[in-house]
């Protein structure tokens, strides 16, 4: 699971944002999903299903390609802008949504409830904004021109950073919107001032550049092997129409988000009323300002950062914006230089020297140098670096994901309590409990709920050690990272427990520690329930069960197919990395590594396109006509009803405990 909790990764977990925000994000995504689906239905016909499914599997797979960056860490691309450039923004929206859904459902990466928010940032804002920037920069340049691949890189950089900024805004508005009577945040504890610089800096400095380099390399590879890109064949009038449609969509979705967010405040009526007069004044002055900021400055392309700059004038925003401008420039210059240098390839991969010019090799002849028993011309590279290099880390990530999907099935096949229940009932029950954890903020209530989760695991024959390890190794890493500043006196005033500096005074406070622990624990409880659901349900059952949550059939078909082809693409990716490992000695230069990752992603995309065509043919030959038909789930039994009642009881008890305490 190491791949999922990368510090520069930005999947929002459940319980970091309020359910109301999650719902608002889903509402904002609905028009985008509908429009993208309609666009594909008319644009591609019934071909959309395999295209999207395998496109999503592709996105998922490349999220496991680690790229070395300065400082010894690695980041991985999301591929959203790459997908938009190659298959169009509509395909990117759906493809990324499916990839995110699978990560949330089966890999515990990003919350199930927060899917709407994660989709809004990574499946909507990122590909659409990235694509618009790409189109603006590319203009009418020919498909294989350097300008076009450069445009894709800039689009990727801007897209990723816009997604990061939106993530920061979604998290940052939480404390202002949802907090208890004592002022402690119910969900994510930091305001915009902390969240934006923290999240954006990492993306501006590292992840954005990596994403851009990867996108450029992959687009260049795809041009080299002659796969045509999304807009290369269309006529200009069509392009104009498409461009305008997208812009309108963007405004509609953003307007919806801005308009729906205040509903969250109304839903928290009790908390609202408990505010003091001065506090209400302060909040009332602050919240609408925060929302109208989003509304007013929405998407005006590059105006976004300067907008924040002028409104606030705070050094944090100014710093972030300045870094952004400098980095965009540096990025353009660097990518330009990389493109010019494209001709001189490093010879790390090709360890063999070229065959000597004078001895011409006829077809079928074995070249003389191959007959020598030992080849001395291969440079003797010795192991110089310490630790695993990126190939091992990537291989490990891919192996993890493959093992994950098999191991998870193992517990689902055991003879236990949850395994016997109908998937639909389990989904409703456990999702209800997850939702409940988001509302609880009494430690006792949360601890009891956690005990219930562990008891369920025990009766379902899932080893407790496994459950605890899975949750407590991963959750503190993500949540702990974002909550760390909260323990300090500068963020949360309180009685100092551990003094770090005397001058200036910096200490861990009791109130800060309490806030951080409560948030971490709440997320852990939610993740435990989600893990329990994923571990005890065969994923085909889980998918079919999702129909009770009104998930459309065609979406389920796409998710199922994505999951299935994940195995095929992971196998391909794994073979590519193994092949590279078998041909290289020791560690390779970072620049060379980045080029390899770009090429590998391009090659994987080539395979993806072929696979899509073949799968579509196979579906057609068995009568596919664009309408999804699934085997119906079996009928509910008495045990299932008992389970629903029991879960309702647990929920009622937890709520009662919360109120009484």
């Amino acid at each position, binding site marked *: 699971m190491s791949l999922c909790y990368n510090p520069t990764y930005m999947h929002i977990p459940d319980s970091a944002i309020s359910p109301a925000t999650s719902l608002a994000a889903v509402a904002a995504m609905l028009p985008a999903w509908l429009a993208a689906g309609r666009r594909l239905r008319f644009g591609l016909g019934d071909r959309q299903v395999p295209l999207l499914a395998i496109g999503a599997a592709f996105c998922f797979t490349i999220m496991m390609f680690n790229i070395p960056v300065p400082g010894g860490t690695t980041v991985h691309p999301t591929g959203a802008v790459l997908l938009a450039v190659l298959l169009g923004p509509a395909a990117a929206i759906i493809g990324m949504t499916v990839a995110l859904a699978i990560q949330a459902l089966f890999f515990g990466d990003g919350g199930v409830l927060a899917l709407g928010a994660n989709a809004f940032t990574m499946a909507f804002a990122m590909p659409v904004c990235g694509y618009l920037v790409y189109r603006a920069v590319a203009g009418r340049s020919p498909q294989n021109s350097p300008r076009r691949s450069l445009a894709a890189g800039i689009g990727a950089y801007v897209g990723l950073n816009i997604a990061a900024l939106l993530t920061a805004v979604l998290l940052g508005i939480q404390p202002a919107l949802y907090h208890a009577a004592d002022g402690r945040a119910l969900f994510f504890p930091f305001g915009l001032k902390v969240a934006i610089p923290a999240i954006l800096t990492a993306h501006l400095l590292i992840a954005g550049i990596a994403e851009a380099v990867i996108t450029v390399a992959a687009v260049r590879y795809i041009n080299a092997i002659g796969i045509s890109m999304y807009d290369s064949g269309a006529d200009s009038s069509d392009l104009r129409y498409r461009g305008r449609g997208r812009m309108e969509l963007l405004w509609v979705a953003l307007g919806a988000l801005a308009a729906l967010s205040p509903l969250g405040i109304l839903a928290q009526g009790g908390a609202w009323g408990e505010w003091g007069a001065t506090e209400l004044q302060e909040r009332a002055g602050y919240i609408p300002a925060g929302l109208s900021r989003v509304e007013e400055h929405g998407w005006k392309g590059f105006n976004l950062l300067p907008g924040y700059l002028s409104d606030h004038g705070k050094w944090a925003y100014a710093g972030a914006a300045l870094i952004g401008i400098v980095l965009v420039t540096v990025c353009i210059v660097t990518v330009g230089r990389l493109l010019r240098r494209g001709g001189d390839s490093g010879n790390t991969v090709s360890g063999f020297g070229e065959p000597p010019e004078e001895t011409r090799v006829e077809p079928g002849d074995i070249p003389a140098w191959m007959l020598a028993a030992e080849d001395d011309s291969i440079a003797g590279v010795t192991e110089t670096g310490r630790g695993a290099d990126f190939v091992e880390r990537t291989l490990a990530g891919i192996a993890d994901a493959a093992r994950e999907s098999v191991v998870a099935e193992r517990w689902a096949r055991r003879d236990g309590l949850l395994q016997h229940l109908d998937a639909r009932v389990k989904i409703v029950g456990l999702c209800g409990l997850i939702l409940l954890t988001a509302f609880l903020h009494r430690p006792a209530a949360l601890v009891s709920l956690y005990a219930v989760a562990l008891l369920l695991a025990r009766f379902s024959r899932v080893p407790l050690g496994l459950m605890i390890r899975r949750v407590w190794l991963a959750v503190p890493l993500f949540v702990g990272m974002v909550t760390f500043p909260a323990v300090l006196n500068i963020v949360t005033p309180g009685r100092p427990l551990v003094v770090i500096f005397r001058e200036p005074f910096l200490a861990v406070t009791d109130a800060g520690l309490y806030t951080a622990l409560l948030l971490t624990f709440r997320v852990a409880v939610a993740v435990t329930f989600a893990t329990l659901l994923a571990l005890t349900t065969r*994923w085909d059952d889980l998918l079919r069960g999702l129909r009770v949550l009104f998930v459309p059939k065609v979406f389920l078909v796409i998710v199922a197919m994505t999951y299935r082809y994940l195995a095929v693409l992971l196998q391909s990716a794994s073979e590519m990395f193994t092949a590279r490992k078998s041909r290289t000695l020791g560690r390779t230069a970072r620049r060379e590594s980045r080029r390899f990752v770009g090429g590998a992603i391009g090659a994987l995309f080539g395979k993806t396109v072929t696979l899509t065509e073949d799968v579509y043919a196979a579906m057609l030959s068995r009568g596919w006509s664009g309408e999804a038909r699934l085997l119906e789930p079996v009928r509910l039994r008495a045990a299932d009803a008992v389970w629903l009642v029991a879960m309702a009881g647990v929920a009622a008890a937890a709520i009662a405990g919360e109120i009484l305490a």
Partner: protein
Amino acid sequence: MHKLAGGDSRVAADLNDAPAIHAIQLEGVSFGYAEGVPALCDVTLAIARGEKVALLGANGSGKSSLLKVMSGLVHPHSGFVRAFGDEINERVFRDRGSAHRLRRRIGFIFQNSDTQLFCATVREEIAFGPLQMDLDLGEVERRIGDVAAMLGIGSLLDRAPFQLSGGEKKKVALASVLVMNPAALLFDEPTSGLDPRSQRWLVELIVSLHRAGKTIVTATHDLGIVPEIADRAIVMNEDHTITASGPACEILADMDLLLRVNLIHEHAHRHGTLIHSHPHHHGGDHDHDHNQDTGIVTENS
């Protein structure tokens, strides 16, 4: 070869009778994937109901494209295709009823099982076709059970396709097609990637499906299985046209023809001190005599 001509009343009568005689008819079919890269050039052939036919040809000669045209997965740039008397073209597929009738009649077993198995579990995989055909759910379940028992994959029904071995995947792919009870089965390189035991099993299955009245068309370059899986062989050359069609045993005996279309190759090998070469294919027995003095080889096949 079946020739069609207008005007003549006998031919017209023949056309009306066609559903009774022919499973698949192609008339002057040309097809290509990209401009300037032809896959099929003016192909005319007819396959009778209940016939078992092998399509022979080297890599890239157009065997797979021919199968795809026969099953209506791609449509020819020129020429006509008929399946069981109904013309196949893009217009036919707009009508759901006739599209389903055609899909049900012609089953296609792809070379790469991974592309054919796109569902979450083996059970859903087998159910996919019948569900598209709007079959009753009870009937679908019954057919899944029967076909799984027939192919011995009953224990795999709740497994995911990616957990299966190559041989098991092939069986599931077959089951997913057989469950629709097609009248004609098109196999694309069925034995490629299978171990000898699975190959044997598959050949015997094809033979028994033929005995049950199915029309069998197999594209292959595995000449060793041709005598069993085909009564007639159609040979494609590297110009994407049909060069020969006739009884399988006659085609296999025509060494010049097979050498010309690159299905067999000059094989150099050594017997004691004697090095020589002769036309050779892999699959059947390798049996020939040597004359130690002259080096002349006599092929026995």
